């Protein structure tokens, strides 16, 4: 290394070996919005070597206050492509592959074998359950973060070891309520904070520094209070295979609200 990562390598917990690990790591980032922009900036600047950015949205003017990889002239263009270009120009040590596409089960199956970890940066419930199941079937860890106004949640999941999002939330929330939630507005710094925390968890996991299996974290940014819930590992059994994943209807699953 040429000194670029010297201050990181100085950390006993990282060293040259850890930096090399980051450099050879392959991360799939689903969503380049409020969470994704902050996450990507941190992953790339810390030296993750290979990142696939998947997003089917285009930049909108009202995204700019919190999605800091985009500029006003980017409005109407692919988020994945603009984010990849922005980061590639500044961080040439990282290979970045933009995918202007929807994350569905077919996409999951084609991408999962080539990655070390995946990150859900969407605000989409069907995608969250698909990520949880795909990560279990392909034995990959994944990192969750999401926001509700001034509150945020995040967790590292290892579904193949029984630490799955489905263990905490087996029942998806009422989609009507989630629609209201998306319409309720957001302070730009909150998803940026959540995405940065998410990036930190990804880096810890890639470096083997994580010890948060079985924990869901919560932060209330108004009063500064944090909270953690622990849960016992239970292996989810369905869908069991890649074929079952492809045939699973996540949209319908998330419409069947029955608490």
């Amino acid at each position: 290394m040429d000194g670029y990562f010297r201050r990181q390598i100085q950390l006993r917990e990282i060293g040259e070996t850890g930096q090399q690990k980051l450099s050879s790591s392959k991360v799939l980032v689903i969503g380049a919005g409020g969470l994704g922009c902050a996450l990507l900036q941190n992953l790339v600047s810390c030296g993750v070597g290979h990142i696939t950015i998947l997003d089917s949205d285009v930049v909108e003017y009202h995204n700019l206050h919190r999605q800091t990889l985009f500029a006003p002239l980017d409005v109407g263009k692919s988020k994945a492509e603009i984010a990849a270009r922005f980061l590639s120009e500044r961080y040439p040590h990282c290979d970045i592959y933009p995918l202007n596409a929807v994350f569905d089960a077919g996409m999951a199956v084609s991408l999962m074998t080539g990655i070390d970890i995946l990150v859900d940066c969407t605000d989409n419930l069907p995608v969250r359950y698909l990520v949880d199941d795909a990560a279990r079937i392909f034995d990959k860890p994944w990192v969750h973060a999401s926001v509700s106004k001034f509150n945020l949640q995040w967790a590292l999941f290892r579904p193949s070891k029984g630490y799955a999002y489905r263990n905490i939330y087996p029942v998806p929330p009422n989609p009507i309520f989630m629609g209201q939630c998306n319409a309720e507005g957001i302070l730009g710094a909150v998803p940026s904070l959540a995405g940065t925390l998410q990036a930190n968890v990804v880096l810890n996991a890639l470096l083997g520094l994580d010890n948060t299996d079985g924990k869901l974290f919560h932060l209330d940014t108004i009063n500064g209070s944090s909270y953690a819930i622990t849960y016992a590992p239970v292996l989810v059994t369905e869908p069991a295979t890649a074929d079952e994943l492809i045939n699973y209807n996540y949209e319908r699953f998330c419409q069947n609200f029955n608490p």
Partner: protein
Amino acid sequence: MVNVLLFGRLAEICGQSNFFFDMADTDTISEKLRNDFPEMKQLSFAVAVNQVLIIGNTKLSDGDEVALMPPYSGG
């Protein structure tokens, strides 16, 4: 008495972030809150006792802390 902590949208619906209740189990708490605040019937949420996730109804002791945490969706 048990201290019931409400997170996110649940705290908004109830107008406060915690209640003290004298109740024997977690289902009784959920039922009371759903009756008092019907909008809560639209929400799913995780229930933890003393910061440990529970599945199904759980008996409570004096001094227990019950957390009701809905999933969030914003990104």
